[in-house]
């Protein structure tokens, strides 16, 4: 059975291996250079405290490859589900070859177990290699990324560490189970993609924020957590807004960021603007006063008036804990669908 499974799978396996070899070679060749440039930049910016600007510049220069490799890691599990999972059984059902193989001296359970074992483990190995290689390569960029692409932020979290392995295992068995239910390759692929995408959106939106109780804290305003100052052209009050970052906890995933006034009342939620009684024509917030440190003096003035950021966030220190928990959740989903596949094979599929 192992021979037959390998014979059927070797084409896809070879293609995947080739893609992974190319990817890891490219990452291995460019990774050390990226790391040394980051180290040099940090050494240069630390004495005069301009590392924020170095981070911005460094990340800006490498944003395209950063997004590209992250996308590869995010897409790989979906592709595995579509092209390895869904056709695994439907291809046999469509050609009727399941009747050929079921009538050799191999039980159906063993047939499915070997198929799931070999292809499933290959899928997990591919996602694991891909995920860890990208995690290693993008380490300097993850340290300098903008808040929206912080390591804990939804888009990046799923493209790092061991979670992709869990996604791949789940996407694969999802494809197999859907294929067994609908029995035709193309509809099975479409449904697999839709369900997998729905799960991948639901996870960061509904589940991941609650894996551990988020940290709640109040912060002084600074250029780290403030979006900017905004005045209507026709005049009117000066508006400020927070952005999803918290001072001193770079890489965090900020779930909510409210603006409080001096009495501790919330005057603006995440992404909303609120008026503050400062002048932009004179004083610390006027353009004339903006020195080499930008609006720092202005933020000091607004802090003095009692305004604060109230944020809930998942700090970066929880990265690996979250990775293990999330991988565990997907492992449980995978086991559930595996059980279902065997049950369906026994009860209904023939």
């Amino acid at each position, binding site marked *: *059975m192992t*021979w*037959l499974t390998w*014979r*059927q799978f070797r084409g896809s396996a070879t293609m995947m291996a080739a893609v992974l070899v190319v990817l890891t070679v490219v990452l291995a060749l460019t990774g050390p250079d990226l790391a040394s440039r980051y180290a040099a930049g940090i050494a240069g910016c630390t004495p005069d405290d301009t590392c924020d600007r170095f981070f911005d510049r460094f990340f800006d220069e490498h944003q395209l490859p950063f997004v590209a490799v992250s996308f590869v890691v995010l897409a790989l599990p979906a592709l595995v589900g579509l092209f390895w999972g869904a056709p695994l059984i439907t291809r046999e059902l469509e*050609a*009727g*070859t399941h*009747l*050929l*193989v*079921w*009538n*050799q*001296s*191999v*039980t*159906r359970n*063993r047939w499915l177990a070997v198929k799931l074992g070999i292809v499933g483990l290959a899928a997990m190995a591919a996602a694991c290699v891909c995920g860890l290689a990208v995690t290693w390569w993008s380490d300097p960029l993850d340290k300098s990324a903008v808040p929206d692409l912080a390591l804990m932020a939804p888009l990046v979290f799923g493209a790092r560490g061991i979670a992709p392995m869990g996604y791949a295992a789940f996407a694969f068995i999802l494809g197999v189970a859907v294929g067994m239910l609908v029995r035709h390759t193309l509809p099975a692929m479409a449904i697999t993609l839709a369900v997998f995408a729905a799960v991948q959106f639901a996870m960061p939106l509904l589940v991941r924020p609650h894996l551990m109780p988020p940290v709640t804290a109040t912060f002084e305003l600074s250029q780290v957590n403030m979006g900017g100052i905004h005045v209507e052209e026709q005049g009117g009050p000066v508006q400020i807004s927070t952005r999803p970052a918290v001072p001193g906890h770079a890489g965090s995933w900020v779930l909510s960021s409210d603006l409080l006034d001096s009495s501790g009342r919330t005057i603006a939620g995440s992404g909303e603007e609120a008026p503050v009684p400062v002048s932009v024509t004179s004083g610390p917030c006027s353009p004339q006063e903006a020195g080499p440190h930008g609006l720092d003096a202005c933020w000091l003035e607004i802090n003095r008036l009692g305004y604060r950021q109230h944020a809930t966030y998942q700090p970066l220190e929880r990265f690996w804990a979250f990775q293990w928990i999330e991988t565990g959740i997907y492992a449980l989903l995978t086991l559930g669908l595996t059980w279902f596949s065997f049950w369906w094979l026994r*009860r209904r599929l*023939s």
Partner: protein
Amino acid sequence: MTSVLQAQALGKRYGKRWALRECTVDIPAGHVVGLVGPNGAGKTTLLKLAGGQLEPTTGDITVLGGRPGSTPAQLARVGFVAQDTPLYAALSVAEHLRLGARLNPRWDAALARERSGQLGLDPSHRAGKLSGGQRAQLALTLGLAKRPELLIMDEPVASLDPLARREFLQRLTEATAEHKLSVVLSSHLVSDLEKVCDHLIVLVDSRVRVAGEVDRLLATHHRLTGPRHAFDRFPFDQRVISVSHTDQQSTVVVRTGSPIHDPAWTVSRLSLEDLVLAYMDTSTENRRAHLEVQR
């Protein structure tokens, strides 16, 4: 005499539709059994139940004394060639034989090599490029080289042209005699089965109509032809299989062990095809009910 296949009140339902109902048959070993019936009569269902690909809804089935498809040992004893003789299109002939060798403990490599050589199958040819006849022969080779005690084949010749059909059936007969196996094969054409079968099961409308050895069936079924008015005093102790009338004449097919002496009726023998057609005539059921009323 041992049985290769025993079914007791066997039934299979898909949703609300019964594909097979109250099927009770006992097939003795050492025969080539033909399973015949119109399309959709439940032939494939019965064979799949025997192969263990389906679980019965009601009743029991044992094949060679065991539950079908339950263990590798049971699977090894039963060969199965599915409808349309499915093969892996991307795999070569040699790879199919290797598949058989890998997946069957009793695989007879010499037999497989010899047969595929006789058939002129190029080992490097992909199965997807074989002709229908070659595909069927390769599937039969896989089934035979497994060295089963019972070989089940579902419409193995349905997609073949007459020449390939004859050759396939001939090879099957040779192999059956050589390896002393029991064979069950289905077809919706009696002419295919007539050449190879010595035992027959007629399946109509998901029920078994008649089953038995071909010679016995032919000896006990008669066609009676007589004047139409004689039909009113028809010997009703006979089991009527089918009735047809013209203006002048009535033709009745009956099953009986005893000779018929009524001078009004001319008795003639039936061919196997006529016999099967008489059972397939589904309107007979209504006619027989009609006769009951007349009585």
